[in-house]
């Protein structure tokens, strides 16, 4: 019996790797097939996917809807801008080295306050805190540049091995940065996959499903929620750190609550009940938003219509709908 289950597990791991490999290969080949603008768009998509992936540890796996994840994305981005302004070395590794601990500490601090409540009260607290951070970014203009924001020049990659000054710098930067972000994206996905399949991750899901029973397994509910918040915020912060050099500028917009709404939107779009949902959602949302903005002045209306349709027609998101369709197809084949 034990052996059979073990074999099944290994087979499902293999299946997973087999499904991921062609996608990864396609992503590696992509920059040589499309133009620089499109590559840039895919990078934005991957970054949004990392942000949504982090966000979904709270929503999908812990059952807590944060409406303030813009704070962690924004703090990540601003940490890069501060390093540029005050510390000097324009190295991506340096940004990550300083940014990640900073985001982790602020997530831990804000999370400690927020997890004292659940449901709508949790959501309101996260929203309130993110709005405080937004106001600070707006008002403390001598530090943050106010609504003008702070400029972030192109950093060097791989400890200064790749530099991007000069006339052809931009195109070279975008291509290199694509692979850089792709690498971090893969690390994030693997890390998150391990976390949600670890005993810790299972405990989070247990707390999500049934708080009372989880307590009667001896689990310390609040501590689990807190650590989940910390990890979630940090992932989203990493997305913010990656975003700043690509965008070239950090402004308070990314701290505003509507940006939190976009992260929620991305997770819902892909489907928050599936591991891959927020990844797909982050990428699709990036395209949807970009083309909506390009094609109509009323792009927010367009996104609103998509959101309403989504909730009514595809409550389990894109990935959830595909999974269900495949299940139904499989059953029909089994019958026939």
């Amino acid at each position, binding site marked *: *019996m*034990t052996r059979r*289950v*073990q074999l*099944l*597990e290994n087979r499902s791991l293999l299946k997973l790797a087999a499904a991921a490999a062609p996608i990864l290969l396609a992503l590696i080949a992509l920059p040589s097939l499309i133009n620089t603008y499109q590559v840039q768009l895919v990078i934005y998509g991957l970054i949004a996917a990392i942000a949504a992936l982090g966000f979904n540890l709270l929503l999908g796996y812990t059952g807590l809807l944060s409406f303030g994840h813009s704070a962690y994305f924004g703090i990540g981005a601003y940490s890069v801008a501060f390093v540029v302004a005050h510390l000097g070395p324009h190295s991506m590794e340096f940004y990550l080295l300083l940014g990640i601990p900073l985001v982790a500490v602020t997530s831990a601090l804000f999370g400690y306050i927020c997890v004292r409540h659940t449901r709508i009260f949790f959501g309101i607290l996260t929203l309130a805190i993110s709005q405080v951070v937004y106001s600070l970014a707006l008002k403390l203009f001598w530090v943050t540049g106010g609504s003008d924001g702070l400029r972030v020049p192109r950093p060097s990659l791989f400890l200064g091995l790749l530099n991007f000054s000069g006339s052809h710098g931009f195109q070279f930067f975008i291509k290199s940065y694509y692979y850089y972000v792709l690498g971090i994206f893969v690390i994030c996905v693997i890390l998150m996959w*391990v*976390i949600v*399949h*670890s*005993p*810790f*991750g*299972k*405990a989070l*899901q*247990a707390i*999500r*499903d*049934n708080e*009372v*029973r*989880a*307590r*009667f*397994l*001896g*689990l*310390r509910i609040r501590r*689990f929620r807190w650590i989940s918040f910390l*990890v979630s915020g940090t992932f989203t912060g990493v997305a913010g750190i990656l975003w700043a050099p690509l965008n070239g500028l950090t402004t308070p917009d990314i701290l505003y609550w509507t940006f939190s709404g976009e992260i929620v939107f991305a997770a819902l779009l892909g489907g928050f009940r599936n591991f891959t949902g927020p990844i797909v959602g982050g990428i699709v949302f990036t395209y949807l938003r970009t083309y909506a903005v390009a094609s109509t002045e009323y792009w927010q209306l367009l996104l609103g219509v998509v959101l309403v349709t989504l909730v009514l027609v595809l409550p389990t998101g894109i990935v959830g709908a595909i999974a269900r369709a495949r299940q139904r197809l499989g059953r029909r084949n089994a019958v026939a």
Partner: protein
Amino acid sequence: MILLKTVNLRKQFGETRACDGLDFVVNKGEFLSLVGSNGAGKTTLVNLISAHLQPDSGQILLEDRDITFTTVAERIKAGIARSFQIVNLFDGLSVFDNVALAVFSRDGKTVKMTRLADHDGDARRETLDVLGQFGLASKAAAPAGRLAQGERKLLDVAVAYALRPRLLLLDEPTSGVSTHEKAQIMDTVSSVVRGGMVTAVVIEHDMDVVFRYSDRIVMMHEGSFLADGTPEEIRANKEVANILLGAPLAI
């Protein structure tokens, strides 16, 4: 040998005295049934012992150690686990994971973030062993939410049992299932519990079941104990018969 003792334990909800100064004793290794009509205070007593509720006054002693003011987590560590009357499971997780989580939690492994749960051989073996004992091994991969009611009741007990408690509190393990299934569930539960040398306190309404499986029966009425004895003694007790039938015998 006394495992658990309560001293003058009181809990009141408004005007209702759910536990009215109870001196309750559980002996090591026994299978004790707690019976009585609805509102007699059985579930309140179990809630107090498991730290789901705090008493108004009185003491709870586990082998002479005062545990009255300990938390749920501390009481589980001390060896008190419980199941629930209305099935309380993790419906989104598999049957396997429901039990595995109890094993992880007991061993303090739920802090592990960077190891896959399925790669823990010891926990896996133990989980499959517990599932096997409760006859649920073939359902290991199914989501807990998809099980039939009788299987859900068994899984609820299995999750509590996997914590390896010394005292297992079962709040109506057979409520909401057919008479036929009741016997099956109680057969399984009593054989696992007795085989594992676990002391059990079971709340049960079906008197046939109670008489058949218990070592000792304690009857409650309006927050107090009415009778306490072996199944034979309880069967012979006229007062108990009156309460059970709901009216004095007309003889």
